């Protein structure tokens, strides 16, 4: 069996993962074969190196962030007393009685739920707000169910409200067409083909998505409006928390107070604060979507000249989207507005060093929030207490 070389078994031999018979034969072969012995020494050295990897302690603030997200998720939370009761019931001596009780409860529930619609299952509740919205060809009277794959449409006079499982609500404005693509505990996804919706979601990040013809809006714990025009262009406006917009390799992170446009075939543009000047926004449109290089260049010059401290949101995103001298210009303007933190160098940023970009973003974010909102005040307190990054968790208190 081991007349041939045994190098393919060497790691398993080092880790004692072979049967005793295999181990004995590998050992015998190693004595007689210089080539396999050489490979064995090399692999054993590699294994010794790998064994130097230490365990890394998780940051102490991690649990707090999880707890905040869990609280917002609305999952039932048992008290210490309830927990004790469950542990008590799970003791072996009570197992039979517990089992009988479960069977009774399940049987009763099955009987009670027989022929009733499944709440929060593979469909969402829809309530008519105005006019005559339709699901497929059926008019929604007061309430209805929107199943996976079904379209909900409103005309010029109608509006509707959708309950997204138990995590939030979406209002559908007139002249809008949406379809439910997916609903499961780990993902809820709508498609907005045309029109406008307003979403308010209280759930952990990355649970609720809206597909549009020119990008996907990914909820990071927030409230926002999203509209799509006849040409498939969309505009996202965030009122609370964060939303990520993405299409293929382009991604924009949009905080409360900011907006971001998308274009078919291009994807998300660069986010900007809605209180930015008209000239700044018009220049950004040129930079994002103009195909003429000269126009883009003029747009960038105008944009940099008119940028405020808060507009570093836009400039930070632009760093990864422009190159060469343009990137250097963006860096210089950002450094004038908010100098980078210690350890973040011009060279590193121009080379798009991810850690440096993130470190600078952490500093810049303090200028991006509007702390006049009560929720933002508490967030500021949390942040200054050093609880770390809370992307997507803002404004949920």
């Amino acid at each position, binding site marked *: 069996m081991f007349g041939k070389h045994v*190098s*393919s*078994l060497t*790691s*398993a031999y080092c*880790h*004692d*993962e072979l049967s005793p018979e295999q181990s004995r034969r590998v050992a015998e072969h190693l004595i007689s074969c210089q080539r396999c012995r050489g*490979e064995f020494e*090399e*692999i*054993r*050295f*590699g*294994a*010794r*190196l*790998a*064994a*130097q*990897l*230490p*365990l*890394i*302690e*998780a*940051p102490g603030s*991690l*649990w707090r*962030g*999880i707890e905040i*997200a*869990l609280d917002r*998720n609305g*999952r*039932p*939370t*048992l008290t210490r007393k*309830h*927990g004790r009761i*469950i*542990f008590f019931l*799970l003791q072996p001596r009570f197992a039979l009685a517990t089992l009988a009780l479960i069977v009774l409860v399940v049987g009763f529930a099955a009987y009670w739920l027989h022929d009733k619609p499944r709440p929060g299952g593979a469909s969402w509740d829809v309530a008519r707000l105005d006019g005559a919205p339709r699901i497929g060809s059926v008019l929604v009277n007061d309430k209805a169910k929107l199943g996976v794959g079904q379209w909900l449409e409103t005309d010029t006079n109608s509006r509707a409200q959708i309950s997204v499982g138990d995590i939030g609500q979406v209002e559908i404005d007139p002249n809008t067409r949406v379809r439910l693509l997916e609903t499961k*505990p*780990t993902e809820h996804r709508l498609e907005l083909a045309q029109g406008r919706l307003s979403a308010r979601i209280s759930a*952990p*990040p990355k649970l609720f998505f809206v597909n549009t013809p020119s990008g996907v809006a990914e909820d990071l714990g927030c409230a926002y409006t999203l509209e799509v025009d006849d040409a498939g262009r969309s505009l996202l406006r965030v009122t609370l928390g964060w939303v990520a917009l*993405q299409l*293929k*390799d*382009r*991604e924009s992170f949009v905080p409360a107070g900011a907006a971001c446009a998308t274009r078919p075939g291009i994807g998300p543009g660069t986010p900007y604060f809605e209180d930015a000047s008209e000239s700044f926004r018009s220049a950004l449109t040129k930079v994002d979507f103009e195909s003429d290089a000269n126009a883009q260049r003029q747009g960038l010059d105008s944009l940099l000249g008119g940028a405020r401290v808060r507009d570093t949101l836009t400039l930070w995103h632009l760093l*990864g989207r422009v190159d060469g001298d343009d990137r250097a210009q963006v860096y210089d303007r950002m450094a004038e507005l908010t100098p980078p933190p210690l350890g973040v160098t011009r060279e590193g940023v121009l080379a798009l*060093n*991810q*850690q440096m*970009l*993130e470190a600078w973003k952490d500093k810049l974010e303090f200028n991006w929030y509007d702390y006049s909102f009560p929720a933002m005040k508490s967030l500021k307190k949390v942040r200054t207490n050093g609880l*770390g*990054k809370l992307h997507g968790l803002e404004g949920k208190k």
Partner: protein
Amino acid sequence: MLEQTAMQAEQRVQDPIDARVIRACQEGDREAFRLLFEAYKDRVFSIACYSLGDEAAADDVTQQIFLKLFTRIGQFRGDSEFSTWLYRLVINSCLDERRRQRRFLPVEEFAPMSKAVYRKSPETGYERREIAGSVREAIGGLKPKMRLPILLKYVEGLSYEEIAEVLGCSKGTVASRLNRAHKALAKRLSHLRGELEI
């Protein structure tokens, strides 16, 4: 020395979580979930750190993993070991995050994680930390196919069978990937031969 490392890994992964805690988590018991979090947080965070090479991203991903875990723990039926089930979730989340990072901005492989706190052991000295740093960087340079079995073996102390179950491949594939990974490490860090106790 390999045997010592294996023993340490085994002690590290002795499962402090029993079926009752998992059942309580499935019932939504926050305290049981806290127990589970405390038992696995360092291991999950370590995998995320080594896999992503970025402490901030590892922090976010670890948080997402535990949130997913809490949402999905009801789906755990006990057909496999809980740790195997959990590590599958961890590996998938890390791979997703890497894909996401690539979409947004080019990520430098394993930039230094200056703020990372390594668990101290009595033998932790300057030289050993230096070696550990070099090993971490070298592991960061491996392809995910080779890196993941290394992490599951040396950080989590899983057996070949468990690694195969987590990665959805055969034991033979695990053995072969570990072989290639060991060779690659030995080649990249050949200058450390004299510094490691043989």
